[in-house]
């Protein structure tokens, strides 16, 4: 089988395995590393990592589907995760979501045809003091209103 990841990622997974008292612990960090490289975790990647760590591919698939951050298909270049939970909802999260849906022309859970944006709703991001908020890829953007959303979308190519 050809290796679905870069040699650096492969070596990183070896290092991870050696760094825990029990190699199984390396699975989550390995999946993070794969997703960082490829943007998502394919069936092929799951089989590969299962072989590396010494667990069944079905076990890896179970882990991947359990955690919401692991993507099983590609997402947009800018993956917009809008928080929907109560503290954000009290500060108008639903209106922000609706504004995003209108502006992007996609529904929640979809990606724009040019692959630039994807939009999902997520639960409390632990930043309710800046509600309403979204996370775009790794970064948070708080105190959202329609104007700020528009400016954000403009700045993201």
């Amino acid at each position: 089988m050809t290796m679905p990841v870069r040699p650096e990622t492969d070596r990183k997974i070896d290092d991870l395995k050696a760094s825990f008292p029990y190699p199984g612990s390396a699975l989550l960090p390995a999946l993070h590393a794969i997703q960082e490289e490829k943007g998502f975790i394919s069936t092929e990647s799951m089989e590969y990592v299962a072989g590396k760590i010494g667990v069944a591919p079905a076990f890896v698939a179970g882990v991947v589907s359990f955690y919401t951050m692991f993507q099983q298909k590609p997402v947009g270049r800018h993956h917009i995760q809008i928080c929907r939970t109560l503290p954000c909802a009290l500060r108008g999260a639903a209106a922000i979501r609706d504004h995003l849906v209108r502006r992007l022309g996609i529904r929640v859970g979809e990606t724009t045809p040019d692959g630039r944006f994807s939009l999902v709703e997520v639960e409390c991001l632990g930043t309710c003091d800046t509600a309403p908020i979204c996370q775009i890829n790794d970064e948070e953007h708080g105190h959202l209103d329609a104007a700020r959303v528009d400016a954000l979308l403009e700045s993201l190519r």
Partner: protein
Amino acid sequence: MAYEPLLLRNIAKPGSETIDISLASGGYQGLRRVLKELTPEKFLEEVKAAGLRGRGGAGFPTGMKWSFLPKTRDKPRYLCVNADESEPGTFKDRLLIERDPHLVLEGIILSCFAIESRRAFFYIRGEFHKGARIFARAVEEAYARGFLGKNILGSGYDLEVTIYRGAGAYICGEETALLESLEGKRGLPRIKPPFPAIVGLYGCPTIINNVETLANVTLIAERGAAWYAGIGRPPKNTGPKLYCVSGHVKRPGVYEAALGIPLMELINERAGGMLHADRPLKAVIPGGSSMRILPAAKCDVLMDFDSLVAAGSMLGSAGVVVMDQSTCMVGALLNLAGFYAHESCGQCTPCREGTGWFVKILTRLERGEGRAEDVDLLIDVASRVEGNTICPFGEAIAWPIDSYVKTFRAEFEAHVTRRGCPKGAAAFEVNAMSGTGH
């Protein structure tokens, strides 16, 4: 007298996350003292005498938890730091991690010394990208200065700290789910007993503590148990506390006070009062989304563990969610039911099915399709979930359901008789993704 911050003493300083700022404000002095002067048992006794109770949700006495470890030393012992912070309305640990990681890290080293552990895992929720980066740098700095690694400060004590990132699952904040996740598995809570102190990570004795709890350990090491035990409402509610205020207030944020600050002082003085002058307070969740709600009439309460239990709720994670008169309680509860339905791990039938039922019933009430018996049905289903599940997640949804319905019963009934939400609260609608479970 104005309250002098202890946990947040550094956060306003530029570069507060660096070891130099930490050292300049007395950082790692407590560690020096303890390693030089005390044995692990002696320091454990100090933490007990300080009266420190866990800041992760249950308020369990920290020193007592540590003393549940087996007396034998035949297996390694682990400390797992709970930095999963996912309880809606909670954002205090994140502030400590990002702005004063060394206060937390020193507490980790001290706690590992007390429980005789040589390996700690820092389990941080996956969404905290920035926090994980900052904490990783803090750990590197501490290794470079000899506060971590072999023979710490010449004491002969060794410790390694490893950061472990979660990947998006609220349930991994539950301590045994956290252990499963750390072992590279799905985060399914374990049946207790055995308790983690006996059989924890990799089958070894393990202590799980919250980030803020560990930051408090640093303070105890710095200034002693007697000083610490004088803060707050001794003997059972001691020390400083971080309160997270969100919702309909002028200045949402993290506020530090001695345990037992009056809730109304927190809202009106610290958080700047209600967001809109013409919309008075309706209700407050005092301790994160899993806790029972307090109507405005019951908000003259002190924010400590025991006072909130007496008031019919709990301090929980100290996530104070403030709601004004514009809030629809059916909509608010539907929003939370959506959260719990999405986050249930699905192991126990009452939790998996119950959360689905709550969403279904509350959705039809909100849409004007509710039936008269739905109001009691909510209470009935909640009573079947509570106490019948593997982990306390069952209570975490049963308590809100039971308390919102009982406290605001007339509002729930009005949704039936008036065929929908009088406020038209579409803001709280549950999205398509909720209710899918894992």
